[in-house]
């Protein structure tokens, strides 16, 4: 690393400390987020004074022109004067940058060490070459398995890599507003992990990841990409989940009705299989007990049994609807091969295998059933990782729209089944190789325990202050200056912090255009309406509607 070749871009200002310093920047020589250096001297542990290179990141830049009086602006505006025509100065902008110190390097050892002595005021600030910045970042990261994700926001030439080992074991959260680049980021990571044959399962609510199926042959010939639709299969051990589902999806029940339901679940044995089928059996049995005025249930009157039976019927109907909705969505993508989700208890290897990406397509399912599906799935997969035999390899679970599965306590939804399961998986994931990636646009609505377990964060544009607060609360490495930057990030620009990098970095994520799902449009509704052609059924209905309307208008008789 030839520091003499680095361009001088400014001078360190007066007061410095070991965390940050300010410097005066030459016009247009650096940007916010740039990595810069300054030469300094520090006392070594042996008591010598050693010259070191201090590295820092520009966290903010302020510009002022002390020679341009505010009231001059008033006159320029009022009189519609172009400043270039006047004698007012235009070249005396003073740029002051705040630099967050990342650490120092000694000689050619590119490992960043924490600075414990302030940088020298009045020292020259340099702009290191892109190669040297990249070399520092790679060397400092010291990763066995780096994943390429994009480039440094301020310098396109500096490629940024993150550490795969920490990513898959220490959990990561990806937050940002809708359209800010979360999915682009997830796809980028998935692409890299697929190349490393790392197994993944994605809970895909919108079909954002179906591009992987479409491009599998071309882009991932050595990988298996499977697309599953949910199969609500339960075993006798899942009684708690079944009870919660019925309670939440059905009509609200009184205490005796709940007692009946509980006893019914005990009485009606089930070998395991389709949840819908089981609920239909329960409804049938409940009606049977009610019509017989069964005395098998102490103190419960037949009327209560009928109510519970009706509620079970309601649940069955809702589940059927959701299945059908999901089915209709799948039908729209006839070219994709959907498979029923194998039983995670008995056939986990069909879901998690080396080099395989499994996508669970949840579109059409309401939060609660989706939560139940995810809970049962993850619970079983986790169990297999816990077992001594380890039937499946370590894997990464990607939870899209995570606020649906791990809502915060304040949302009053914390008793949905997936919260407890994911909490367990994420807490013990490091031991068993069950890493979790949480993706959400509303971090403030997430379960705090789970969010705080994520040791790395990738944050995209975020305007909502509640969400910004939640993000900084859950992150140990995201600075206040970083969080101030969040509302101003453009699409695909994010700040990466935590254990996947050694210090927070503003990054432009590489956009993998080929991974977009071709079957999902770009929310171009205006064009859709412009090209709208009514379905035949609608045309037919319209054809007769007028006639039927005439009949009703002349019918004067009262109804019986």
């Amino acid at each position, binding site marked *: 690393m030839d520091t003499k070749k680095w361009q001088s871009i400014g001078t360190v200002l007066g007061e410095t400390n070991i965390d940050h310093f300010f410097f005066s920047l030459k016009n247009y020589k650096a940007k916010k987020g740039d990595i810069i250096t300054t030469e300094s001297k520090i006392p070594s542990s042996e008591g010598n004074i050693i010259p070191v290179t201090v590295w820092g990141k520009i966290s903010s830049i302020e510009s002022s022109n*002390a*020679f341009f*009086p505010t*009231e*001059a602006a*008033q*006159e*320029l505006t*009022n*009189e*519609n*004067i*172009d400043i*270039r*025509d*006047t*004698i*007012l*100065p*235009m*070249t*005396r902008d003073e740029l002051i940058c705040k630099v967050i110190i990342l650490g120092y390097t000694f000689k050619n050892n590119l490992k960043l060490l924490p600075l414990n002595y302030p940088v020298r005021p009045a020292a020259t600030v340099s702009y290191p070459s892109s190669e040297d910045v990249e070399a520092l970042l790679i060397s400092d990261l010291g990763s066995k398995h780096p994943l390429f994700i994009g480039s440094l926001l301020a310098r396109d030439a500096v490629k940024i890599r993150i550490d795969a080992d920490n990513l898959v074991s220490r959990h990561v959260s990806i937050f940002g507003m809708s359209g800010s680049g979360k999915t682009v980021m997830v796809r980028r990571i998935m692409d890299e992990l697929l190349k490393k044959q790392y197994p993944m399962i994605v809970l895909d609510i919108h079909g954002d990841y179906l591009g992987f199926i479409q491009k599998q042959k071309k882009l991932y010939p050595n990988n298996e990409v499977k697309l599953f639709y949910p199969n609500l299969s339960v075993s006798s051990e899942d009684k708690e989940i079944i009870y919660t589902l019925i309670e939440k999806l059905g009509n609200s029940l009184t205490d005796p009705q709940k007692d009946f339901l509980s006893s019914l679940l005990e009485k009606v044995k089930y070998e395991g299989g389709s949840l819908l089928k089981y609920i239909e059996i329960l409804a049938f049995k409940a009606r049977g007990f009610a019509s017989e005025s069964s005395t098998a249930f102490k103190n419960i009157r037949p009327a209560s049994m009928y109510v519970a039976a009706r509620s079970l019927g309601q649940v069955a109907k809702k589940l059927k609807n959701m299945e059908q909705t999901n089915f209709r969505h799948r039908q729209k993508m006839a070219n994709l091969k959907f498979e029923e989700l194998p039983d995670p208890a008995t056939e986990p290897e069909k879901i998690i295998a080396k080099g395989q990406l499994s996508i669970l397509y949840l579109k059409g399912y309401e939060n609660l059933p989706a939560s139940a599906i995810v809970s049962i799935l993850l619970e079983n997969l986790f169990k297999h990782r816990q077992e001594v035999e380890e039937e499946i390899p370590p894997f990464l679970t990607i939870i899209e729209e995570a606020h649906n599965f791990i809502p915060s306590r304040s949302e009053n939804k914390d008793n949905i089944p997936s919260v407890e399961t994911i909490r367990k998986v994420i807490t013990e994931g490091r031991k068993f190789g069950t890493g979790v990636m949480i993706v959400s646009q509303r971090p403030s609505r997430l379960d705090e325990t789970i969010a705080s377990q994520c040791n790395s964060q990738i944050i995209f544009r975020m305007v909502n202050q509640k969400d910004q607060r939640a993000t900084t609360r859950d992150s140990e490495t995201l600075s206040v200056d970083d969080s101030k930057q969040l509302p101003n990030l453009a699409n695909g620009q994010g700040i990466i912090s935590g254990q996947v990098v050694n210090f927070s970095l503003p990054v432009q994520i590489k956009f993998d255009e080929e991974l977009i799902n071709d079957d999902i449009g770009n929310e171009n509704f205006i064009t859709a309406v412009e090209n709208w052609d009514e379905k035949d059924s609608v045309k037919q209905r319209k054809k007769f509607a007028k006639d039927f309307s005439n009949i009703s208008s002349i019918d004067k008789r009262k109804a019986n």
Partner: protein
Amino acid sequence: MSDEVNIKNKIKANSSLFINFVKNAITASPTVQNNFLDVTAQVALTIQKIIDDANLIVNLDYKGNDFWLKNRCKTSCFIDGGVDRTSIISSAPLSIRTGSYIVKPDAEDKNREFFEESMVFLGDLYDPKNELYDLSDDDFDEDQMLNKKKDGARIIFEAVTIVKHILLNRKFDYCFLHGPIEATVMPFTVMGFPTFTKFAVENMLPFYTKNKLNAEARHFINVYLEALKYIKQSKFPVYGIVETSNSAPYIKNLLYTYKSKGIISDKDFKNTLSTIKKYKITDSHLLEIILKNGQALKPLEVKKQIKGFSVTSGSAWEDKMESFPSVYIGYIKTNDHSSPIRIESLTSPVNFKKDFEYILATARLLPNYGFPVGLNIVDKFAKIPNWMSKASRRYYATHLLKQAIKSKDQNTISLAVKILSRKVRSWRNRPLGGMAR
């Protein structure tokens, strides 16, 4: 409404005059308090009549957008000086510089504007090796003289900066100095005021070789006079612009002209001058009432250095006063609420209206302050910033104390601490070493 009532209302409505009026009311005797307003109003009324009679008021044109489009090709230079007023007992550090802001709006970016540190001096007035004043001639080294020497240096530096631009054959359309184009030299005529060193004079005015630069030739009066004569020859117009006038040269001169013509009697002239003096009425006070926004007063020739003043009287320099060039003084009222600014030049302005319109336009860019923005800019540039003065004070203090401690002499150390203690109280309450008794 009568003229008198109208003027009184103007006085009341006018903020800066009203403040002065209140100040006067607080400090002056009850009688003066009662008639201050009447007297000021009467003087203003009389002066206004004379000004109208002499047809001195000119309405200046200013249409922001239009004006700057037409004048964007003009090159202007704005000059100001800055002095560091740091002083501690043991030394007299002098940091002085003049800055020039040169701007040509229609030039391409890199040639559009220049901030130039035109003259710089850093040194200590007590240092025998200093290169500005000749200490062998210096009888006056008391504190009060230090400020006078600093002022003298600043005035010379500002004038010499203009000289430098002329010498370099700079192609300016206008050159403006922040302050009077010709300062009153009377304070520097006192006996024993030190001369500049030969080195300094040679560097400041390379063309000046009078009497082989003997002590007399190097005196402030001669050096300044030489600089002014050179400025007077300038091919581009040079104006000194003063924010507020603390004296009444324009009014007095106007009255004198009318007296000379026989329109005012000697008695009335003398009495009016006496009233102006007693009531501390200045050009600013009166013209603020008389002039309207955007109006100017045509320049009048005024003698600034007057022979026969008590200070110069009998001094070796008394006769020299006559040699100083006359100054042409005019005024511009740049906005509704500020005092008119004074415009001075060493020659009678050839294009007075055009030049004054340019000055008005530069002042309009500071609509509240009402002072040419170019001078405001160069003022900020040339000013010795507080942090620099502070740092230099700290440096001198540390140095002094280090030297004292090095001497290991308790009395010297005590003296150093005493010098550095700003107040006697801090000296008395200084921490004492050793055991408490």
